[in-house]
């Protein structure tokens, strides 16, 4: 081991003697020194913003009115402290007839000048006003003894007491960003700790740019010559004549190059960590994880550079190839992302519905019907807005196929999933007899989130306010009322949604499910899971409730008398119909279950996860069902047609399985478009083989962001993220594999090379 440690130590020695190290360390020092004056000043909350003035007109009027009184008033005191131009502007502002040009005054700025004045408060002006306790406490200390920010705080409190309707209360503290003696921007009405998530985000972004791009480039540039120079004819003869292994010599040299960069990265990141800690009070130890992560990122590029250096023994070639490699990785990632986003995802069917003797599929809010004649999916359910040049991608609730009426029901939600903005307006109806043309039906209940097919062909709507049943003739619709450009839905004449359950006050629903056999319904809003039992008259009563202390993400199903809840904790939670917990089954992946399906007899539960894999659970036997569907990793929808399982993979291919026998029965498959062929057989295999160094930035973001960060942080398994790579450690492993292969190839090359 001694010889290889000597090689690594020699790299340190070389780095220390080299001017490059000192230049880099010097530049880093200058950068850190430039950061050092940055900081936050914690102040007593007194700054008056424009938004704090709730009613500027009324406040102006009051100030002017009070200034005209003979007795001392707060308005009079303010008036006295304002200069003439400000007074004139205020008077003009109060006068509605004054021209706009005469009213350029920023009232908040004018009043802030008053609030900052240490002489603002006079007892006689506040004689009739009761100061709040906080103000009295400050007053008791003596205003003359208080620092400026405390006086401003007192003045602000006194002002709020005088104009409680017009001025919003200020927070007790505020923070002021500063650079040395200079104040940056306006004070922020938050506690310093509340700035931490934002600071973290800035740091993560800065590191991604500073180290992830510029730093790695400089590092590759600086280290590119190390290996080619070592293996040049002069030095290599001397080295290879020693009793050492060629492969280990190369690896030691590689580690030495990494050590060179580690010194710089550690210095920079430790420096930033210290600056954040000392100047902002943000001691985020996670930041130090950026050292190995960015070193790893560098090692990937350096591996390529080193391999090129061994083969061509030329530093310029090494640098060029490392840059070309970066370009290829970036181009591949971009091409895969663009094709996936613009060519494949719009075609991917996320819902499959058996509809009599045919199939219906939904992709980005568009409904398609399988045509046996054309052997292709044909778009149906086309409405009036189909002529828009850029149709807005929507997400449909449904479609729900009504076999008796040979029609489908659906309604659109404004954004994918059931979010707070998932408001919907009208039920959409398409009849087979009309060529499945989409017509708007009656208005939906407030908070409608899902369509459920009840017993006896009932059409049920699950909403946050309860369960509703479609009754009457849905075709007889009353025209909307157009008011100032907004369409207001009026009640339909012949149909209605009857509330058939107890009134509930759930949050926007995340999931709704019905037991096809019993008609029992489960609603889940993330905080609460509620079950309803169907009564004799088709009405529902609540039979169980399960609450969660924090918001959970997941999907529910009702099958075989049990309520099954697949949560993002990677477990399938089983409850009885009264929602008494039974047990929890480990799911095969941490990925979130996106859609659940159960057959009419409730025997099985099929889950399609966010990572596009399908998992089958035998509810009766309480074990995983032994079905191995094809297309795992590319499955986007699942449904049951009777006891047969329908699985969508490869965007639009549907496969029918006999679950009991585990047999493939039938497939509906179209010819693959050229772009998809290119993606599947060329681009994606290349992308799979190539490392994904760019994705390491996601890993860094994940590692650096505290898991309880309230805003801006990466939240895994959030269904509101339409498509996010959930496997944050995946890039690490794939890049690691690539690095091992590159270094292995380099070692083999060196062993076989005649120097």
């Amino acid at each position, binding site marked *: 081991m001694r010889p290889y440690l*000597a090689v690594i130590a020699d790299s340190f020695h*070389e780095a220390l003697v080299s001017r490059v190290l000192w230049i880099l360390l010097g530049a880093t020092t200058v950068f850190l020194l430039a950061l050092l004056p940055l900081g936050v000043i914690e102040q007593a909350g007194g700054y008056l913003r424009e938004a704090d003035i709730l009613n500027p007109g009324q406040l102006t009027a009051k100030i002017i009115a009070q200034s005209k009184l003979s007795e001392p008033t707060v308005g009079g005191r303010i008036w006295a402290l304002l200069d003439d131009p400000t007074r004139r502007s205020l008077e003009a502002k109060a006068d509605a007839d004054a021209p706009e040009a005469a009213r350029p005054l920023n009232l908040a700025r004018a009043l802030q000048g008053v609030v900052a004045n240490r002489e603002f408060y006079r007892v006689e002006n506040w004689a009739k006003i009761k100061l709040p306790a906080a103000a009295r406490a400050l007053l008791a200390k003596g205003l003359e003894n208080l620092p400026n920010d405390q006086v401003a705080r007192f003045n602000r409190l006194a002002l709020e007491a005088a104009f409680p309707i017009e001025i919003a209360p200020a927070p007790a503290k505020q923070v002021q960003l500063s650079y040395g003696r200079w104040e940056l921007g306006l004070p922020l009405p938050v506690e310093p700790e509340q700035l931490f998530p934002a600071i973290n985000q800035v740091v993560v972004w800065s590191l991604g740019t500073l180290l992830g791009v510029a730093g790695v480039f400089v590092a590759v540039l600086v280290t590119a010559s190390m290996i080619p120079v070592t293996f040049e004819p*002069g*030095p290599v*003869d*001397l080295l290879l*004549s*020693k*009793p050492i292994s060629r492969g280990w010599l190369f690896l030691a040299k590689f580690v030495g190059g990494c050590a060179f960069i580690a010194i710089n990265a550690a210095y920079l990141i430790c420096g930033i960590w210290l600056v954040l800690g000392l100047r902002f009070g943000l001691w985020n130890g996670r930041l130090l994880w950026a050292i190995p992560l960015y070193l790893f990122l560098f090692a990937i590029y350096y591996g390529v550079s080193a391999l090129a250096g061994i083969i061509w023994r030329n530093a310029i070639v090494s640098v060029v190839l490392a840059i070309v490699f970066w370009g290829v990785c970036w181009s591949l990632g971009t091409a895969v992302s663009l094709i996936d986003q613009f060519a494949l995802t719009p075609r991917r069917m996320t819902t499959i519905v058996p509809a009599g003797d045919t199939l219906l599929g939904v992709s980005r809010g568009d409904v398609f019907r399988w045509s046996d004649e054309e052997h292709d999916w044909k778009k149906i359910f086309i409405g009036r807005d189909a002529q828009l040049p850029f149709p807005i991608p929507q997400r449909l609730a449904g479609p729900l196929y009504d076999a008796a009426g040979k029609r489908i029901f659906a309604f659109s939600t404004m954004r994918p999933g059931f979010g707070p903005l998932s408001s919907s307006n009208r039920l959409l109806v398409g009849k087979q007899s009309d060529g499945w043309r989409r017509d708007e039906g009656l208005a939906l209940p407030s908070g409608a989130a899902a369509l459920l097919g009840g017993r006896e062909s009932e059409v049920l709507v699950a909403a946050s306010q309860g369960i509703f049943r479609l009754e009457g003739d849905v075709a007889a619709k009353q025209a909307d009322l157009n008011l100032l450009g907004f369409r207001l839905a009026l009640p339909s004449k012949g149909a209605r949604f009857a509330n058939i359950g107890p009134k509930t006050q759930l949050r926007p629903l995340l999931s709704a499910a019905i037991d096809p056999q019993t008609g029992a319904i489960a609603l889940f809003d993330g905080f609460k899971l509620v079950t309803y039992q169907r009564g004799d008259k088709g009405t529902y009563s609540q039979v169980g409730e399960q609450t969660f202390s924090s918001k959970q993400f997941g999907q529910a199903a009702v099958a075989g008398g049990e309520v099954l809840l697949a949560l993002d904790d990677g477990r399938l939670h089983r409850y009885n119909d009264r929602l008494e917990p039974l047990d929890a089954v480990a799911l095969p992946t941490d990925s979130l279950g996106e859609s659940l399906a159960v057959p009419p007899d409730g025997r099985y539960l099929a889950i399609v996860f966010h990572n596009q894999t399908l998992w089958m659970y035998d509810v009766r036997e309480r074990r995983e069902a032994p079905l191995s569907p094809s297309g795992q990793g590319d499955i986007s929808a699942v449904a049951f047609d009777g006891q047969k399982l329908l699985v969508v993979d490869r965007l639009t291919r549907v496969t029918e399985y006999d679950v009991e026998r585990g047999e493939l029965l039938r497939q509906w498959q179209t010819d693959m478009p050229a772009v998809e062929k290119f993606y599947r057989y060329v681009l994606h295999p290349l992308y799979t083989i190539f490392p994904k160094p760019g994705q390491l930035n996601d890993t860094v973001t994940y590692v650096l962001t505290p898991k309880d960060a309230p805003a801006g942080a990466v939240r895994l398994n959030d269904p509101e993220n339409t498509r996010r790579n959930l496997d944050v450690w995946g890039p690490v492993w794939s890049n690691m594999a690539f690095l091992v292969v590159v270094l292995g190839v380099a070692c083999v090359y060196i062993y076989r090379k005649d*120097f």
Partner: protein
Amino acid sequence: MPTAAIDVQNLRKTYRDGLLSRRAVEALRGVSLAVERGEIFGLLGPNGAGKTTLIKVLLGIVRRTAGEASLLGLPAGSRLARKQVGYLPENHRIPRHHTGNSALMFFGSLSGLSRREIRQRRGPLLETVGLARWGQTPIRKYSKGMLQRLGLAQALLHDPQLLILDEPTDGVDPVGRSEMRTLLQSLKAQGKTIFINSHLLQEVELVCDRVAILDHGALLHQGPIAALTVRADAQARFTVAAREDALRRALDDSSGVESRSLGGDQFEVLLKTNDQATIDGTIDRLRQQGVSLVSLSRGRQTLEEAFLDILARARDQR
């Protein structure tokens, strides 16, 4: 019985070049030679003869295509064999960030020596190669001769049994060459084997016991320098002291012998052959007639002449 320091049997090396390695260059064509322990052996040959390739094969820097080679009884190129060898490459380049001391520390570590051992050895060694005052100096300030001395020091640092020196006196001044010759003789006296590859035939002639001549990858000659420099068409010249009649009796039956008086009782006898048996027989007959042998000189050629002669003959044969 100890094995040879270097034993090479029918060694071949073919370099592949060009697109798909279709162009073959034969650098060594079945070379066989042996270097005994404790001798100083010189490897001679024109540029491109394959000398450096042979050395690199011995050290495992280049892989052999066919044949066998061993160093000190160990497979050539093996790590154990390299541990016993000190190598000074031609045009070597020690990284410029080193000082003399740190370079020896680095290369000594590569040879498996501990830091303590290196510290103990490097002082005397730098003294030996004439760099005692330059240990702390960055080597970027070294002259070429100093770099060559430092290269020799790193080759000697781990006290190897076999030294392979490729152009060791390249860039070294005459005084330094003389010192190096002394050092090599001293190492030989310690029982070390020294294998020298050099263009400077005078240097080789002065220090080597035996030489081998390589040309176009083939071995043309191998043997002691003394035998190589003897001219096949040379004459043996005797100076004798005798009476003339005794001299005539001794030489009567000999053909190809001439004599002339040098004055007094001294004569010069010229034997027109360089054949050893004839010389021995002539001496025997002179002594039987009471002739005193004052001196004997045989015609010799320089190593350079012999080297060029052998090359010319080899090229004529091709």
